[in-house]
């Protein structure tokens, strides 16, 4: 199929896409878009609140994502899965292969964000951050790599962060995990490239979701304010990048995820794509 002619039924017609962290936010946005582009969807989310994270998705929200996906005309399998549970992730992939025949695309998106200076960064915060944001991504990749490799076809995108492109104070755990995702992506890209499987990372700045809009994040950027509001922080967020945008729309990330996993991005692999209003322009790499 040519790159300039969208196939009937959407760019991902006939493809099976697994999205982790699909209950809300970026995960939901990506899932709905793939559904609109003709894919069948596998959705998962822990759908449970952890003490070590901001507001996480609920079972109801995961089901709402599934409803949106169905409304777009897509077949969907939706399941509560904690990405730290590699056995459960593997079972989800095994079920996908049984139901749909394969998994074509993995969007390893599940993640949390918290902030603390080193001296108060607790073991629990470190552990959950690394276990979810790094090991969770590896678990998902390990679950799909065998089937993608065997079929000599597939595309993996992991959600990293602009925080993975510099040293970010008060986020040693988050930085570590998100930097680690890039190393994982590049090494996996080298291994899986000969088998027609691409592996990439997206590195967004703040996105217009719960992960950005909460007191912990606001306070990080405006420690001078007691209970900063969205309007109060917007200018500060905007000042961090040269385009003056406070936060991305989810679709700004979705477009990148779709590009990297579509025919258009067929030879893009091992890359970390900065979607950050130019925050990255001050970096060497």
């Amino acid at each position, binding site marked *: 199929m040519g790159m300039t002619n969208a196939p009937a039924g959407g760019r991902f017609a006939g493809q099976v896409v697994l999205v982790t962290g699909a209950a809300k936010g970026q995960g939901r946005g990506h899932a709905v878009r793939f559904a609109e582009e003709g894919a069948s969807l596998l959705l998962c989310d822990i759908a449970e609140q952890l003490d070590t994270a901001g507001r996480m998705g609920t079972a109801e929200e995961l089901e709402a994502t599934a409803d949106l996906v169905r409304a777009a005309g897509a077949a969907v399998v939706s399941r509560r899965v904690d990405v730290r549970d*590699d056995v459960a992730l593997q079972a989800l992939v095994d079920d996908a292969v049984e139901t749909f025949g394969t998994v074509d695309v993995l969007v390893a998106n599940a993640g949390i964000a918290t902030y603390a200076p080193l001296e108060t960064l607790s073991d629990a915060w*470190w552990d959950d951050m*690394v276990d979810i944001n790094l090991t969770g991504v*590896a678990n998902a990749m*390990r679950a799909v790599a065998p089937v993608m490799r065997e079929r000599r076809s597939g595309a993996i995108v992991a959600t990293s962060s602009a925080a993975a492109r*510099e*040293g970010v104070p008060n986020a040693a755990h988050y930085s570590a995990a*998100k930097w680690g995702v890039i190393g*994982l992506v590049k090494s996996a890209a080298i291994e899986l490239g000969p088998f027609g499987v691409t592996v990439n990372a997206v590195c967004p700045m703040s996105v217009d979701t719960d992960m950005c809009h909460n007191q912990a994040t606001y306070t990080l950027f405006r420690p001078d304010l007691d209970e900063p509001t969205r309007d109060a922080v917007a200018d500060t967020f905007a000042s961090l990048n040269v385009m003056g945008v406070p936060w991305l729309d989810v679709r700004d990330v979705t477009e990148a995820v779709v590009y990297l996993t579509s025919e258009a991005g067929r030879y893009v692999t*091992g890359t970390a794509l900065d979607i950050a209003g130019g925050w990255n322009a001050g970096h060497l790499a």
Partner: protein
Amino acid sequence: MSDRGSYGSGRRDGGGGGVALVTGAGRGVGRAVAVALARRGLDIGVVDLGGTVAPGYRTLDYELSGGDDLESTAAEVRSAGRRAVVLDLDVRDRSAVRAAVPAVEDALGPITHLVVASGVVSGVPIHRMTRSQWDEVVDTNLTGAFNVVKAVVPGMASRRCGSVVLTCGSESRRGVGGVSHASAAGWALVGMAKAVAMEVAAAGVTVQVAALGPVGSVPVRSSRSYVEALVGPADDPVGDGGGPVGEGGVDARLAARHPQGRPWVDVDEAAAVIEFLATGSRAMTGVVVDVDLGQAARNSA
């Protein structure tokens, strides 16, 4: 050595040499660094798996430090005229790591230098990697380093005095097939180092990273799976059967990966760079120095 001035004010007896905590000090680079810093006038807390701790690893294909290794390092430190405290522990054990700090500081004085040279290696492609293989490398190389940094660095910052050097492999600076777990852990360690460097910069504490190409000592040289990941597909047997990886084919194939045409970084070469970063890098922080036989020359950053 005039560069002791900004770091060396921690000793109880006012000697001014300073106190270094060195992990992975039982063998190889860690031992060499411990001895080098001792020769510079520092007292040393030497940390490694020392034989009283049962090494809780199931997925590694080489022998870990143990037995007399740590005591041998301590003996070399004492031969250099410095004091040594031996701490036999697993860096994944947080209570042991936390107890080590007062144990060192009560005996030797506040820690002024930290070198994390602990780490494990293995090689396995991601499509065959088990959870245990992932965990053992990430828990040791990343979280183990975090445990030590968290136990030591806040004290350095409050004293406005300290120098930290973390170490990782050259898969921390690029993608490398067959070692995605070590790559993830190493990249993550660099991210952590830079984040912490930012936090403690104004307090005069420096945090550097030495990214080492394959070092010609255990563990790297003895891990068949890691070496095979570098020199060929993981399914190809190379070197002798059993025991440490043999000479010949492996060395030639490793050398071919490096612009300098050598297979291994010598332990002393790595230690010299770490020694510099630990004692002479005051106007730098958040820096990664590649001691990797020329791989850096191919890198974009």
